[in-house]
């Protein structure tokens, strides 16, 4: 009997440690979802890539001071609609649902997801430890796409945090010839992709972010580690791709740009 108990204990330990070895599973964030939508079939399928959204702390610099913060803006509808597009348009083995990478949780989890997306980074408020994790993540080969931040104030907040991650690396304006604009689609001609507010205000820009910028931080080999979609809102374009009032040209560019960024991150 004791022997059987010992065997069972060993098996349980093995099973538990095996579970720990796996990357995190799909998880819903009810109560934090800004734009809830139905969970698609097979959300926890193991695939090569999925939309990994960064869950970060925010609030110190803006009105996102509640429990939720700014990380789930457009979440999860934008993620899942974009995922469907990636599935349909590319050969990337893609999951139907996003994966939230919680920077406030297990700091090593992010390494399982070499492509991550962060929204509203003009409001994030990273700890020193989180900056260190992101730095290490990017140096190992991870790719960070940031989106939906506008104007001088949000830029300054973002730059301040990026300098804590990479004090020594400049932020550059991506030239049209950069491979990131040509991996799948040639995106020499780009427009400012507005947020949903444009339908009501008629303005493409938000705050004083009149001019869209596609900026980046390169690694030592001239490869993009951090891709910044500044003064534009690709997340809204994905989120409202099914909105007849939202113009297709913006959605189209947002999908193409997102796909280019993903394929770039998987090839460079």
């Amino acid at each position: 009997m004791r022997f059987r108990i010992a065997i069972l204990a060993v098996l349980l330990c093995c099973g538990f440690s095996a579970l720990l070895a796996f990357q995190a599973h799909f998880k819903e964030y009810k109560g934090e979802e800004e734009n809830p939508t139905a969970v698609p079939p097979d959300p926890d399928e193991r695939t090569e890539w999925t939309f990994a959204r960064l869950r970060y702390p925010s609030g110190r610099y803006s009105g996102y001071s509640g429990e939720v913060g700014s990380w789930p803006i457009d979440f999860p509808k934008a993620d899942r609609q974009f995922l469907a597009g990636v599935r349909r348009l590319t050969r990337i083995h893609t999951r139907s649902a996003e994966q939230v990478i919680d920077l406030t949780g297990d700091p090593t989890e992010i390494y399982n997801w070499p492509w991550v997306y962060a929204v509203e980074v003009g409001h994030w408020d990273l700890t020193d430890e989180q900056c260190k994790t992101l730095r290490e993540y990017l140096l190992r080969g991870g790719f960070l796409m940031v989106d939906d931040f506008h104007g001088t104030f949000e830029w300054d907040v973002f730059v301040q945090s990026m300098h804590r991650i990479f004090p020594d690396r400049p932020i550059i304006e991506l030239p049209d010839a950069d491979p990131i604009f040509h991996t799948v689609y040639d995106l020499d001609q780009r427009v400012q992709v507005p947020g949903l507010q444009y339908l009501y205000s008629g303005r493409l820009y938000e705050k004083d972010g009149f001019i869209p910028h596609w900026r980046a931080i390169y690694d030592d080999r001239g490869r993009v580690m951090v891709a910044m979609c500044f003064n534009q809102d690709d997340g809204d374009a994905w989120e409202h791709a099914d909105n007849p009032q939202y113009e297709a040209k913006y959605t189209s560019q947002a999908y193409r740009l997102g796909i280019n960024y993903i394929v770039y991150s998987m090839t460079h």
Partner: protein
Amino acid sequence: MFQFLFKYPSNVFAKGKFVLLSPWPVWLMILLLAIAAGGLFWNIRQRRGLLSTARSTVIWLAQTALIAIVLLMLWHPAISVARLRPQQNVVAVLIDHSRSMGIADDGKPRLQSAKEVLDTQLLPDLSKKFQVRMYGFGKDAVRVDQPDNLVADDNATRIGDSLKHIAAEAGTMPLGAIVVMSDGGDNTGGIDRDTLAQLRQLRVPVHTIGFGPDHFDKDIEVVDVAAPARALPQSRVSARVAIRQHGYGGASVKLIVRENDRPLAEQTIVLKPDADQSETIMFNAGAPGSHSFQIGVVPAEGEQNTRNNSVVRVVNVAEKRMRILYMEGEPRWDFKFIRRAIDDSDDPAIDLITILRTTQNKTYVQGDAKAKDLENGFPAAAEDLFNYDGLIIGSVEANYFNNDQQRAIADFADRRGGGVLFTAGRFGLSDGDYAKTPMAEMMPLRLTSGKTFIRNFADPSLTEAGRESVITRLEEDRDKNIARWKKMPQIANYATVGDPKPGAVVLMTVAESGHRPSPLLAIQNYGRGRVGILATEGTWRWKMLQDHADTSDYIFWQQLMRWMVTETPGKVVSSTPKLVLSDETSVPLRASVRDKKYEIVSGATVETTITRPDGGSDVVSLKPDPLEPGTYTGEYTADKPGTYVAETAARQDKTEVGRDTITFRREDGVAENFGAAQNRDLLEKLSRDTGGNYYTPANAKKLPDEIAVSEAGIVAHDNLDIWDMPIVFLLVILIRGGEWLLRRKWGVV
């Protein structure tokens, strides 16, 4: 003692034929023996009351044996043997005067011992019966009148060449036998079969007298080092070092690789008691050019011969960059990190050109601005594919390739000689329906049917072969390397491919907890090339799950790709059996020539231009080998020690097919440092194979008597009586005396 009992030396019986000289028929002897045995049996049965059955049988057997001996002697038994006629034959005596014969084993040089044996035990008797011709030999045999003048100064021992020389003279003289006085330290690796066949055809027995101990009491010798002849710049190469030791069993010694006295790699090994052993040491081949690496064991305290502790191996590091084409069927993380493995290291040896299917109808080409021909995807023509040296097939469906492309991929390894690596994925291996294509045949693992690709995390582990492989060597030190692999993160996925085929080597396995391991990395040679399977696309975790400064993933991929292409031949491949000539001058040259489709070229003009150490050059024309189409051979004599550069160029119809360069080196005064103990096995085998005998200096005095038995030279067939051998009389006395003693004991005298 043998000769005392049997009247003649043992080789008379070994080589002679038993005959009965009496005119009476043999059946009569058998009949008489049967009658006698029957009579004795009847006689003993008449008196069976006196003895038990067992005792009666013993007496009957003794009496019958006695009668059998007497009858046999009456039939006049003899040995018919061919013997050299006295004073009509020549005996050639070859005295080894190579440097190893100057070693004083017991205070007396071996050559001195040989001279003493010659003077005191051989010459006096041999001269009475034969004409004795004496030769000194090292690299070749030279006739000498006075062996006393011989000095142990020749840099090499070539017993085979020397015997060939003597055999050539056999046509002009009645050569009856050859005597070789040597320590057997042949530097050519043995006596070639042609020479042995020639001696057997002449029926000349070679008698050998061995000098020197079978081994030194305290010595470590590097018997051989197997290292690649070619390498890519800055690549890790592996040398297999064969070590023999006496007196150092269990001792720890240092294995070391040096170039120009600068240590490149070292590792501590423990010497096995009473056994030869092989150890692997790895080192960096360095920059392009010819490198002479000194590979061996640091001398241990008290070694009797430290000059046999290391050898030199030449490695030609090519300047050219090898091109690897990587065809990938879907974006995946491994693709990124494989590219980075080459890009981030500024690899001087490899150009990685990649085609990635990003969407159903788009490909993305990276790595080579000149790769315009890849805009339409995978090369359509075999000769375009053959412009590459290596090929990686990723997660791409087999039917993405048409039939011609599938055949070209198989031919890429088979005929072109390139390296091909298949990796797992949703559309790779079995999951991509490769099992029924020509590509399945070239793979080192049998493909199973159905879906085999699983996205489960699993532990990779090295097999025994993987622990020794240069592909999986992340650390120079073997034990550190094993420890490093044990700490590697799990891979993200794998495919359960089938069992290895015969000839395949599995370097790594993968297993989930509680599951049976399945091959993860397997390799094999296929035709002129190499094929590997890496049954995962999840090695990216080795990069993402380790510190950013950790380069395990990159090293692994760099070495895997180097393995693929290091030995990929060009259209012209030149070679010579040994890149280091130890006290040798003859350099066999060989070149294989192929066209752009890598088909054999038979009618080419092939020339090798050899640049000598003094800067001058010679041109050698290579001739087609009639037995091997597409191969051209020639011979060059390296007159002086030093480094020679040989550039071979092939032309066909005034168009150059290709060229290849190798470097070889002649070193003098080295060969005799190795195998300095007596090679008794070689001497015994030489004698045995030619019908001669092996002698030690102590029993060499028997040689003059035994040497007469030979079928070479001028011989007479003698019938030697054996009825009067002392052993016969002794046997008769023993049988009769034994019977008498038994009868006395049993009280029936």
